[in-house]
């Protein structure tokens, strides 16, 4: 572990005048926006197909770092650090995903004499292995999901443990995360094959065959606590975020605060989260993720040692800018908030906008965006990296942005987000916007009584969404569209032979 004095280079000097953002997409733009607010110059890095991406256009400086393949561009540690040095950047912000939770990268940034806007490499390392994180948390008195804290390779031992904690159990890759590398086992008979396939999957996906066992929680809630720590040892926590609306372990809609959490739990979870941060000597923004059972018991699941996708809901209910706080902490400044706990004012809800088609099993829908109309109005925020004319690439994650709404009450915040999504218009690329609206209007979500099974429940019996008024107007519109198209087609044939059809669409006729 590096001593604080060498880790933190902010003292006195002229630092943090220029930040390199080692990321792409909406998060790169979001970080750059705060930099602009603070008068800090920004350096974008980009892969070949990303030349026209918004983060490149928005930055003060931009440098090509490699081909589309992330391992040769956005995950290329040497190239990124070289670019930071050449451009004269004094710090690197990793965003989320890519290198954000890579201890080796954080260390390399420090070794290059630059500031890493994030925690110490040792904190990232400590939380990188699930078994290690469970050990640390248990030692610090933080409740973890019942199970073991060491990896296990002997099947007979595994069977013994599984029987002790009781089926169903979860087998999880120690190096896993983001919902990958885990398997539910219902009975002792199923254990052997599941045990073997989880080990091989862990080896294949994470190059680490270590797995462990924990109790399977039936339809848990997923609730997390944002924490912040400065270099002076001050740790604060924020009102919780509810992230139980998930599809295949990926978050879809998040809100803050949570209907499920009462004041007593809120204080307790905040205290536990701060304890967890202290246990790994944490600095900067981090998130403690908890699983909650139906009896409101909460268990530590993992700590994310970076800014989260859903951080805007916390910003909306607190009026704070978490990226600004990250930068100030990286400069060595103490947290301006002296209270241990920052409560929520009102309610905020976020929907993740993805280039995928809910009607075709959420198949990705890359393409060229021909038209983009962003929602507006009071207390609506759009964090997106798309614009009219941009390409949504097949090479990267399908999440293209987030729409967030705030209101004094939960009901109004939901309605406001629903309204904002109804205004959103994207042509050229199918998105999940309508699916988000259907969930926002789904009774269990509206009531606030839901858990991680919500989307399965919705998909079993989606409520009727389209009424006869929509159908009639759609048919009238379809007729108008076809009529105008046919007329245009005729004019084209008459005036310019059959060549250029660009005005009809950006698709190529075959």
């Amino acid at each position, binding site marked *: 572990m590096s001593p604080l004095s060498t880790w933190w280079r902010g003292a006195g000097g002229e630092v943090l005048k220029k930040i390199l953002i080692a990321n792409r997409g909406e998060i790169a733009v979001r970080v750059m926006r705060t930099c602009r607010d603070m008068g800090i110059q920004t350096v974008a890095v980009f892969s070949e197909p990303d030349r026209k991406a918004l983060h490149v256009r928005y930055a003060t400086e931009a440098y090509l770092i490699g081909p589309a393949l992330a391992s040769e561009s956005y995950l290329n540690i040497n190239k990124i650090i070289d670019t930071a040095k050449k451009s004269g950047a004094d710090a690197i912000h990793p965003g989320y995903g890519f290198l954000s939770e890579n201890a080796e990268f954080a260390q390399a940034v420090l070794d290059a004499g630059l500031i890493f806007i994030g925690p110490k490499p040792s904190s990232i390392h400590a939380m990188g292995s699930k078994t290690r994180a469970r050990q640390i948390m248990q030692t610090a008195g933080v409740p973890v999901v019942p199970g073991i804290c060491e990896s296990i390779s002997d099947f007979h031992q595994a069977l013994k443990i599984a029987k002790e904690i009781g089926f169903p159990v979860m087998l999880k890759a120690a190096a896993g995360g983001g919902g990958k590398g885990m398997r539910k086992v219902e009975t002792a008979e199923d254990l052997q094959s599941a045990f073997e396939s989880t080990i091989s999957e862990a080896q294949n996906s994470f190059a680490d065959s270590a797995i462990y066992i924990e109790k399977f929680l039936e339809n848990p809630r997923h609730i997390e606590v944002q924490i912040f720590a400065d270099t002076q040892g001050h740790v604060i926590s924020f009102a919780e975020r509810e992230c139980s609306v998930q599809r295949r372990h990926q978050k879809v809609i998040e809100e803050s605060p949570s209907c499920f959490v009462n004041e007593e739990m809120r204080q307790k979870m905040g205290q536990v989260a701060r304890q967890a941060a202290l246990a790994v000597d944490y600095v900067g923004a981090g998130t403690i993720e908890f699983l909650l059972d139906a009896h409101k018991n909460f268990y530590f699941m993992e700590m994310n040692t970076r800014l989260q996708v859903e951080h805007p809901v916390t910003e909306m209910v607190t009026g704070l800018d978490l990226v600004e706080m990250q930068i100030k902490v990286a400069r060595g400044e103490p947290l301006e908030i002296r209270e241990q706990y920052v409560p929520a004012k009102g309610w905020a809800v976020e929907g993740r906008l993805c*280039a995928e088609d809910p009607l075709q099993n959420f*198949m990705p829908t890359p393409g060229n965006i021909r038209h983009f109309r962003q929602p507006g109005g009071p207390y609506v925020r759009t964090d997106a990296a798309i614009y009219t004319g941009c390409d949504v690439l097949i090479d990267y*994650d399908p999440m293209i942005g987030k729409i967030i709404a705030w209101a004094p009450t939960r009901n109004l915040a939901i309605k406001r987000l629903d309204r904002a999504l109804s205004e959103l218009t994207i042509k050229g690329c199918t998105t999940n916007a309508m699916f988000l609206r259907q969930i926002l209007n789904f009774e269990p979500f509206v009531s606030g009584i839901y858990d991680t099974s919500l989307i399965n429940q919705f998909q079993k019996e989606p409520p009727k969404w389209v009424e006869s008024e929509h159908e009639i107007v759609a048919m009238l519109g379809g007729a108008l569209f076809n009529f105008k198209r046919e007329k245009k087609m005729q004019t084209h044939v008459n005036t310019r032979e059959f060549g250029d059809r660009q005005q009809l669409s950006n698709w190529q006729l075959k």
Partner: protein
Amino acid sequence: MKFIANLEGVEHLISLEPVQTQESQYLITLDGHDYRVDAHSMLSEIVTTIIDGKSYDIDIEKQNISDPLDGRLGVRVLGRVVYLEMLDERHKKMKDAQAVRFSESGLVRICSPMPGKILRLLVSEGDLVTEGQGLAVVEAMKMENELKSSKSGHVKEVFKKQGDSVDGGALLLTIE
């Protein structure tokens, strides 16, 4: 001009006539009901309409631009999407005739539903496949998507190979 719409298996007849004396005015008859419509195109596919006094923004997405006999539309009205098929009379007749030919020849075309890369081809020419069997895995945006056979039969011809990048709608193979 006459159109035939198919909405959830039910056919609807539509006739549309521009009102010659007034620009942007149309008389549309749908299943025997008359609608007076004032329509202005904003982009080629967004139309602002006033239908009998009510204002609607209609946002239309044609699912397949390259095939004139594929009339599938996604139409967004008041933020809700209605999926339907619509062809004008002439194209509808052509399509019906083609459908007859197709069912006689029994050839099924398997196309990539999206642009991406062919990660794996699971069958080769001459293979016997059953309905629902996986034929190829196409990768886009870090997600793998398996294309399944819509009928049982023999793989007649394979047009792409593993590792190829393909456009949306590209013909991958045929099944007989």
